[in-house]
């Protein structure tokens, strides 16, 4: 049983996503909507971390098979200009997608072992992650024409 692996992956990924949202909020201050929203979304990731913490503790003793390849890294800084913004949002999208699919893995596992605590966590956290992805898709779609064609 590798539930421990899954939980750790998710915990790490949420952490990296939170950090990256904060980077974007700070680094793209001139995009007034991003500054406010990205911070809010980082807060959501932190809420997810708090929800995950007791689960990680509960399954800590299980064996774990750490991935050989390091998972997606957090943003190491922000890019500049309209295209830079699009690229940063693309990176956020990758990170958030990884989080979302890992929540799906956790749901499948939790359903299999009838773990109500896991299922409760998945329920609201995954919904928020899905909204984060929807927001990133919306924002990217809006920014793309101007960045790719008119800049």
């Amino acid at each position, binding site marked *: 049983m590798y539930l421990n692996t899954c939980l750790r992956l998710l915990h790490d990924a949420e952490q990296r996503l939170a950090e990256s949202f904060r980077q974007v909020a700070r680094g793209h201050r001139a995009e*007034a*909507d991003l500054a406010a*929203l990205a911070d809010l979304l980082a807060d959501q990731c932190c809420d997810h971390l708090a929800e995950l913490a007791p689960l990680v503790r509960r399954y800590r003793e299980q064996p774990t098979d750490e991935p050989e390849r390091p998972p997606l890294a957090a943003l190491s800084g922000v890019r500049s200009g309209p295209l830079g913004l699009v690229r940063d949002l693309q990176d956020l999208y990758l990170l958030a997608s990884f989080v979302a699919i890992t929540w799906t893995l956790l749901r499948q596992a939790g359903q299999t072992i009838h773990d109500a605590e896991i299922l409760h966590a998945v329920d609201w956290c995954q919904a928020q992650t899905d*909204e984060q992805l929807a927001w990133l898709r*919306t924002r990217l779609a809006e920014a793309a*024409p101007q960045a790719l064609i*008119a*800049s």
Partner: protein
Amino acid sequence: MSEQPVVPDRVADPWGRRTPYPAGGNWPTRVDEHLVAGVSADQVRQWVTSACVLCSNGCGLRIGVADGRVVGVRGQAGDRVNRGRLGPKGLYGWQGQQRDRLTTPLVRAEGGELVACDWDTAMNRVVARSRELLDRWGPLSHAFYTSGQLLLEEYYTLSVIGKAGLGTPHMDGNTRLCTATADAALKESFGTDGQPACYADVDHCDTLVLHGHNAAETQTVLWARVLDRLAGPDRPRLVCVDPRRTEVARHADVHLPVRPGTNLALLNGLLREVLHRGWVDHDWVAAHTLGLDELARVVADYPAGRVADICGVSARDVLAAAEVFGTGQRVLSTVLQGVYQSHQATASACQVNNLHLLRGMLGRPGCGVLQMNGQPTAQNTRECGANGDLPGFRNWANPRHVRELAELWDVAEETIPHTGPPTHAMQIFRYAEQGSVRLLWIAGTNPAVSLPDLDRVRRILGGDTVFVVVSDAYLTETAELADVVLPSALWGEKTGTFTNTDRTVHLAEQAVPPPGQARGDLDTWLDYARRMGFRTRSGRPLPWWSTPAEAFAEWQRCSAGRPCDYTGMSYQALRERHGIQWPCTPDRPQGTERLYVDGVFNTDTDYCEDFGHELLTGAARTEQQHRATAPGGRALLRAAHHTEPPHGPNADYPLRLTTGRTVYHFHTRTKTGRAPQLAEAAPAPWVELSDVDARRLGVVEGDVVRLTTPQGSVELPARVVRAEPGTVFVPFHYGQRASESTLDGGRTHAANELVPTGWDPVSKQPVVKVCGVRVRRVGAGTGPAPAPELGAARRVVVGPPGATAAGGDRPCT
């Protein structure tokens, strides 16, 4: 200038004599008139049909003309909106059109100064730049930022030029600042824009709830109607949600002076009470709405005690307000800037819709929601697409709607921008700042005063990243920064229609010629389109029309079958019947009083204007998602949790700054600041401090204080008012070069110097109602602050016991 004796002084008494009437009664007529000194009614040669364009009420009036000059106005007795009444702006504001007008085009010369020229020179310069940019960068290099004060015919023509001629999605109006949230909330809840209720609902209601709507100062004639109900038999109960002790608050049974930035928490609390106390019409909700479970789940977290803590009001008052709303049999709610210009604006406005949906209180006399408009012609910006939307409340994400327009305009579908939502004002300015919007055409608005973070706005307009064209009647703060300035005709100098908050369409006819070379914006844009050589697929000039009447006819074709159907109207019918409410079709020529009388909403996937958004982030829903929920005519109960305002108070900026309006002025005062009675009534800006905060800061009435936010600082004389401590108010009308009045002394005192840039994620309406601010006393003033002595700015009584200041506070009624 003085008044005719037939009219009392509307400055001293903005709402006029009471004409009380009972529930269900007809609001009595009271005709208000103002003629300039020395002119009597029998000298007036001609009374020309029009309506007032100084707020969203759209009061019907006639323009008096003598010797080729406007000499006065008279309220239209038969008009459904005002029954003859006019407020201070309506009676006096038009005089501002007779001063300081631009009479020739101006272009920026080599030396950097603006110099007068003829139309050919100015238009050639615009067209040369436009052509060059279009060839090199395509349509995304062009943007338009217009107004809430132009006419339907102008908006629709511009919309066609932008979408079918150029093909740019970058088009917005300053309506983004006033009415975008009304629009967005109506789309989210009901599927399309369109005001559900109407003003006649004031006549029928037994309960009135005003959310962030200081009607007494923003729409004085609507407030007169309310006062007449309050003074009559069957007085309706009144709830006021407003941080300030406004005139509305003084008359309210329950006043909730919420902290700015907490509307959503309050509304969630009210919804919770409605659910818990069983004031829900369950059968109606089951038949006509979707989303009750999710709404109930969210609002369960907002018991009155928690709401009281968040909002800074008493739990008892929250419960009392809920009870008034929940037990009313005919409830009318109105919403305005206190909600729209705060953060979480759309989420909050949707909750007002939800309150009415839960009670099944829509579409019946006295039962409804008025998501108010701010500016007079904001509704036309929205329906014609000058706010960037597709005209006729069509959905950019619905390929069938795009195709309809392509056929109507005889252009390729690909020309019509529909890769995403239109670009909103703040984003247009961001693109201009970054240099990808290279030509910005501003018409009839003054962003150098009205947008947040003015320093930045002026830097963008004055910089060399963007070629700025300004069409305006005056050399505004914005025009001074332009590359080309085009002189515009104003109201009364051109013909066209416009639509008020309750869907009433008025015809505003030309009464006098425009001054000098000034001309209507319709003519200017048609001239631009002709010079650019825009054509339809079959080779006709685009737009192919030339006159206002032709533009109106084209708009009627565009509106056919959509919620804002105008096909049953004509200029002649509008002339005879004064105001007609859309939808108005050949089989319903009298127009339509209320929408959704059958509880069927415009949410069908193929018909709706928008597939909706997540309220917290603004993430867009797709067509598939929308179809999957199968709303099919049911209204959507959209829910969201309260969040703290992003630029709210903190240790360094401990007070809450909010901005707003005064009864005597409109927008940036380009007209009202030039009307002597109005300029005198509120000549210069001030800051309102609560008596508690003033005492703590050692400030007395008239002292000069410095307000500082991370964005900037201004110095203003203090008006000490009775209000909840912690909130500071500054009127937003006053620009840097506020007026010719010497009182201004050239100081910088625009409220928006202080306000950070930020907007609601769904409506994209800028947030100007809440940010943290620091206040320090600078020194003594020269007397009382130059604020009006009525309305929310009323002075607290000070001095020895027994003494009362002129116009001082009086007990809450």
